[in-house]
């Protein structure tokens, strides 16, 4: 009762109302978002020797495709790939399987196209070039501005070599 009263009294005093901007938490998020924005879409050309049949490179691409990050990945990382970044933080992987089915996938999603038999169905048939695959993984907006696919090179999530490893895995015979 007394509390009700004091609350209503305070309401009556709104003429002297405090500046609520210092009372109500409303932190600024615009700077956080600005620093986090995605750079404009970029065209990339596959570096020489990008697509390879080297088993070690394909193993890295396979690992990046099927894992979310170094913390969640159960199997040891293949040679030439680490679960941690050089500064000790957790390395992010592609988690491509979250959206794409492919040979050997576990718990694959279906937001993106099924990549089974990619070599026969897409490359050997002439429907796709390896340059297309490279660009798609690097920055999918080039041939589809409204894509829901992740952006992997423009964001610097991966470097050129890693994009090549992933592309080599996708177009490899399985």
């Amino acid at each position, binding site marked *: 009762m007394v509390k009700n009263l004091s609350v209503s009294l305070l309401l009556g005093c709104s003429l002297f109302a405090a500046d609520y901007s210092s009372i109500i938490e*409303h932190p600024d998020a615009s700077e956080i978002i600005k620093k986090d924005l995605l750079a404009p879409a970029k065209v990339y050309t596959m570096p020489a020797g990008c697509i390879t049949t080297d088993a070690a490179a394909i193993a890295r691409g396979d690992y990046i495709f099927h894992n979310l990050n170094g913390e969640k990945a159960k199997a040891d990382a293949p040679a030439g790939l680490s679960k941690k970044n050089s500064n000790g933080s957790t390395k992010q992987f592609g988690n491509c399987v979250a959206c794409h089915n492919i040979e050997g996938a576990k718990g694959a999603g279906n937001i993106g196209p099924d990549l089974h038999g990619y070599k026969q169905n897409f490359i050997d048939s002439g429907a796709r070039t390896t340059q297309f695959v490279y660009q798609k993984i690097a920055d999918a907006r080039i041939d589809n501005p409204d894509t829901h696919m992740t952006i992997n090179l423009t964001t610097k999530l991966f470097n050129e070599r890693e994009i090549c490893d992933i592309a080599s895995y996708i177009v490899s015979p399985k």
Partner: protein
Amino acid sequence: MNKIIKIALSVAVLSSLSFCDDQFSMSDKDRAMYAEMLDNNPADMTVASGEELLSYMGGPAGLAKYLGVSEEKLPEYIAGFPRYIKKFDMVVGLDQVLQAMMHDGGHKPLELKSGNMFEMLTYVKSLANDVPINIDVNANQQMKDAYALGEKTFNTKRGGRGLSCLSCHSPDVIGSVLRTQPLPDLGVNNSGGTWPAYRMTKSSVSTLQKRFQGCMKNALLAVIPLGSKEMVGLEVFVTDKAKGKPIAIPGLKR
């Protein structure tokens, strides 16, 4: 059985369950647990704690007075949040109203992210249970701006993978599967009317804004703070998608 004991039991059973990775969907066993918990939502305890905390500020009557509405109209008024409140000159969520009310009542406002604040928010929103969401995003320029900022924030691609909320919650992907998780339609799912909710995979109560933060974290978007204009904007935008759907607090989520 005494309700509290039942709740305590279901919490105990729940925490002994090993939920798999957050990315994986419910097993049949989990689904049975879900059905059981619909009757005994562990967050009922949260509501009870929130009720007790609000009683220190006069309970629902005190809140109605503070907001300048009758106690009878309070549920309907609550069902319209986030709102522009002239006295604060801000579009605010219910938790931010509670902060102002605490201050004006001589209490130190609880932080938005504090557990006690989640409890109070859950209780206060539950006062509007069964009332259809009636947010008015055209009520005034401030609400229009908040909606526009929310929509922009929802659609902005950013973060380590260049994703936006829209990447996974746009009409053309809803129902597709992300790593065994069907992508929910935030409107049809009544996200605006079912948070705060108990999250079984986290064994804790989460608010809508906290849920947004969860998606940001998972998808590698920089997490923005609770109560920021952009967060409130997102809440306005997402709540509007469920306009007309009845409020049902506490929700129960995977």
